[in-house]
């Protein structure tokens, strides 16, 4: 038997339960990664199963094509999703993403996978109603494939090397598509410098999405004030150490902003000016004594002024603005980040 094969005695009735005994799961049942199903994934990308792709922290085990395919089979993915899965894993294992820290942090951080370009249609990625879930198969199993690989190849399991205090439902699966067709702005990947016809995966060190409800306003200032208020929470990492944030503008809000002539850069600048936290908040409302000293604050931040307000990102460009969601409902979402260099993008290549 090849050295990456495992034999498991099962019955036609008990196989799902027996697979749990292997410890390869994320709490949900997994599809058996048999050699023939795994080979379909390898064939889908034209790669030898034995090919080593990257090392995955914190264990730094080598991810072979077969191992990644096995995780994808277990997740319930289809072979046609495999180029996207490989591109996402390639992105998160880039040194600048610092996956080791993401995997082991006490924070809730997990990679958010954002898809742009024609791939969304080819593999039926949901960009519209219910974009964050549940379903469909493509979104959920791509996200789950990445997470299972992070757990099995990377070795980060809750309470063990994954030290997240609370965990996060998005640690099961977190994959969305941008609804480029209703956005008043250029697609996210084009704004990042890719060609419109490129299929691109972007990964972001993310918290779960925070809903922004504004059913009252069509005025851009009012819509964005709601978003800025949500961005200005004391509870996320950006409050203390800045970094990047993703703002998912729902289509109804996006139409209002676009009809009013607001460019993406206008949105970013307004949010940068308004999404701030006051010194009073940092002192937890206790005046007269500086209770919190942040040695990371630069000199241009006036610690001595009660009116000083700290931005949650370093620059407007650190606010990643995209459009997704259904046609009905005046909602948007804010996704705080975790680290300084939180974003990596890769072209998804079907021909490898």
């Amino acid at each position, binding site marked *: 038997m090849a050295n990456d094969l495992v034999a498991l005695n099962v019955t036609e009735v008990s196989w799902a339960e027996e697979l749990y005994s292997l410890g390869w799961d994320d709490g949900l049942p997994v599809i058996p990664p048999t050699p023939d199903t795994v080979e379909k994934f390898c064939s889908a990308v034209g790669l030898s199963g034995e090919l080593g792709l990257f090392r995955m922290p914190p264990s730094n085990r080598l991810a072979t094509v077969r*191992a990644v395919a096995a995780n994808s089979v277990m997740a319930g993915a289809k072979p046609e999703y495999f180029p996207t899965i490989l591109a996402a894993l390639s992105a998160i294992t880039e040194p600048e993403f610092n996956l080791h820290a993401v995997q082991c942090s006490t924070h809730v951080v997990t990679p958010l996978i954002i898809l742009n370009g024609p791939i969304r249609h080819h593999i039926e990625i949901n960009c519209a109603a219910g974009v964050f879930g549940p379903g469909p198969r493509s979104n959920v199993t791509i996200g789950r494939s990445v997470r299972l690989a992070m757990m099995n190849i990377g070795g980060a399991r809750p309470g063990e090397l994954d030290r997240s205090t609370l965990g996060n439902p998005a640690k099961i699966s977190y994959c969305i598509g941008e609804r480029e067709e209703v956005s008043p702005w250029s697609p996210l990947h084009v704004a990042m410098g890719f060609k419109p016809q490129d299929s691109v995966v972007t990964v972001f060190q993310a918290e779960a999405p925070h809903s922004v409800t504004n059913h009252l306003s069509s005025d851009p200032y009012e819509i964005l004030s709601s978003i800025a208020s949500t961005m200005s929470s004391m509870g996320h990492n950006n409050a203390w150490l800045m970094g990047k944030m993703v703002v998912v503008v729902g289509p109804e809000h996006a139409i209002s902003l676009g009809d009013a002539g607001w460019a993406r850069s206008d949105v970013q600048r307004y949010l940068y000016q308004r999404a701030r936290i006051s010194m009073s908040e940092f002192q937890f409302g206790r005046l007269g004594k500086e209770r919190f000293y942040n040695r*990371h604050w630069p000199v241009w931040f006036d610690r001595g002024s009660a009116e000083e307000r700290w931005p949650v990102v370093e620059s407007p460009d650190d606010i990643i603005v995209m459009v997704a969601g259904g046609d009905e409902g005046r909602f948007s979402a804010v996704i705080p980040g975790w680290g300084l260099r939180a974003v990596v993008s890769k072209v998804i290549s079907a021909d490898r």
Partner: protein
Amino acid sequence: MQLELVSPMGKSDDGKVQANLLSVDAEMKDLTVHLLDNGKWNANHLFSSLETALQDRVRHVSRSKKAHYSVNADTATIQEIARSSDFVVTGVGD
């Protein structure tokens, strides 16, 4: 029946690690220690206390801080630490 399954675990090294380790006979008083602060709040306080505790027990204590907890220390810093130190303490988790 028996199912044959492909392992999703990837490949590990065979357990051998190449490293230049300190001799167990090394005397602390001959050692140079580096404290690498990852930028978390309590790292500063912990390493200040640690530096005080070590100062009279080792040959030299040096310190540096990463730009941000979320990024790796830069290559030049790591190389310099490796060149000039016998062992490194880094942290903290929170």
